[in-house]
């Protein structure tokens, strides 16, 4: 029984069958990659997991509880954090404030009207956020406006914000898309470090095979909305069906 269980999920957009009978089990404490060509339904699947989309049929359960019908913020509170394809951070806020918000969210739940006082709490949260920034090697950038940072730094901050909530499951949607090579390598190192040091399950959707094979413990190949095969990276590399459906087109790059 994995931490995340997807059973018989279907999703149609009009005439397009985006997901057809997807079954997926993500085991605790592994890094599970979901790969597949464009339009394979990777992002649709991810959106079904975080409550952005609701599947037509099937069930999604996290730690034994169904996530269907819950709103994104409730699913997040269950312990699922998500990193987006383009970094979603609070661009108008300073880096430190960006990090303080998940700290407050972790402490206060989904709403607290701490409009006037709470100075002590604020100091606590600043300390926590600064600690987290240090862990992310971003302490020197804490007073910068978040929107003025490089793409790689934004990604680093976003991952840090997700980790500040201490989630059990971290979902990454093409975390290195549109990044320079150096930034990509930094991100891989960061994710490796997170994987090794933390008690966390990672599910990653990725195009870049370099990233996938340096991180994943298990790989699911998705094609035309259905899982083609699930196996270890070594076996996936040599799998004839996969080569045909996916790697064949990409092995040149």
């Amino acid at each position, binding site marked *: 029984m994995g931490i995340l269980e997807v059973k018989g999920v279907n999703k149609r957009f009009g005439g397009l069958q985006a997901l057809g009978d997807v079954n997926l089990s993500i085991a605790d404490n592994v890094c599970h990659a979901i790969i597949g060509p464009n339009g394979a339904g990777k992002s649709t699947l991810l959106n079904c997991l*975080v409550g952005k989309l609701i599947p037509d049929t099937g069930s999604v359960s996290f730690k034994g509880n169904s996530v269907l019908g819950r*709103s*994104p*913020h409730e699913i*997040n*509170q269950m312990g699922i*954090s*998500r990193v*987006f394809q383009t970094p*979603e*951070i*609070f*661009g*108008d*806020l*300073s880096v*430190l*404030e960006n990090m*303080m*918000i*998940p700290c*407050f*969210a*972790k402490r206060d*739940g*989904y*709403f*607290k*009207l*701490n*409009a*006037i*006082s*709470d*100075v002590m*709490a*604020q*100091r606590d*949260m*600043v300390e926590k956020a600064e600690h987290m920034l240090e862990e992310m090697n971003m302490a020197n950038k*804490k*007073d*910068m*406006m978040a929107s*003025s940072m490089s793409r790689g730094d934004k990604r680093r901050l*976003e991952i840090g*914000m997700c980790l500040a*909530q201490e989630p059990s499951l971290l979902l990454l949607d093409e975390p290195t898309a549109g990044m320079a090579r150096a930034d990509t390598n930094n991100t891989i190192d960061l994710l490796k470090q997170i994987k090794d040091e933390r008690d966390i399950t990672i599910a990653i959707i990725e195009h870049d095979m370099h990233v996938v094979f340096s991180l994943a413990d298990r790989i699911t190949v998705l094609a035309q909305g259905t899982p083609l095969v699930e196996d270890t990276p070594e076996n996936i590399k040599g799998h004839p069906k996969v080569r045909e459906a996916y790697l064949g087109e990409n092995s040149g790059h």
Partner: protein
Amino acid sequence: MTDQTEQHATSAAPAASSATQSSTKVLGLGPKDFKLMFLVVVLTMAAPFLLNPFPEGSAMAQFNAGYPDLMQRFVIFGIFAIGFNILFGLTGYLSFGHAAFLGVGSYAGIWMMKLLTMNVIPAIVVSVAVAGVFALIVGYISLRRSGIYFSILTLAFAQMSYSLAYSVLTPITGGETGLQPKVADPRILDGALEAGASPRANLFGLEMGAGFEWQVGNWLFTFNAGYYVAAVVMLVAFYLSIRIFRSPFGMMLRAVKSNQQRLSYTGLSPKPYTLAAFVISGMYAGLAGGLLVAMDTQVGAERMFWTASGEVVLMTILGGAGTLIGPVLGAGLIKYMENILSKINKDILHEWFFFLPDGFENLMVELVYPFIGKGWHLTLGIIFMLVVIFLPGGLVEGGQKIAGMFKRGKDADASKTTPAE
């Protein structure tokens, strides 16, 4: 170049640094905020002097704004704009119906004066409460949408309130004639009025209209009880708004404006935050409405008309949305123009340009005339356009730019002198 980046860093930092330097806080305010608060206290308390810089009888005396009625308007509409800014400046939700809360507050206040007492305290407290409840209802419905749809929904609510107050609800609102305290009203807490006396708003016996004048040379300064009551309330409102801006709650509101998607994927639903901000800003509007009837005991439905809602948007943007002092400045500027510029007429213009030869005099008068008197809206429109185009951060940004120029000048001087040593 380095100078610029430094400036950028400092402009982005204040909220963060005020959070970290909590040890140096006075009254819960960081040093910068405390300075600002102190400045505002001094300015409001000295307003009767500051707004009356020109001696009586001089040609410039018409630019004096230090009379009670106008000074009261400055601070009351300042409160209105401060409250609006908590919603618009922090969360980015543009309400186009805030005058409804002002009006509802005014009606609630006047009913307290009719039923309970002419003391302004119950009137003000009840106007805040009633406006808050009304804002809760309107906000709960309007906040289902964001962006332009939210604005339209609030506008619709405000216009509905206006129309209802004007027609169907006449028994409560007085319809076209409006409401004012009458001699025959019950007023259960007050004793019977003396024969021939009319009910006057007071604060434990201190009448709002009371005051004294002080003649210094040619200058006449008016000190009015009503103004000082309203000013103290404004200072409290301003102080609360600083605390809200700097609190974790204020940070969440800015996060709502910045990225709602990230907020909800951080386990926080934006809705309770926006609703709380909406109610708080509605209560500020109610407070302003209550003070309006406390100062001038009458109310009519036109107070809720959509132009009144638009005015507070103008005030906030003109002064600088999202800044602390901006809305107050914007409110001051608009009310000043509305009351002073609109009073200038052709005769006064002829006096001004009297020194010119006849032909030029008439030409100048014709050229300037469209911008004054009833044409003051044209001047306001031009100023508004200039501010929005050249100073997107409003008057506050203008002030910062000027201050920055002085600072740079100083720095340049310093760098010139140091090598010489």
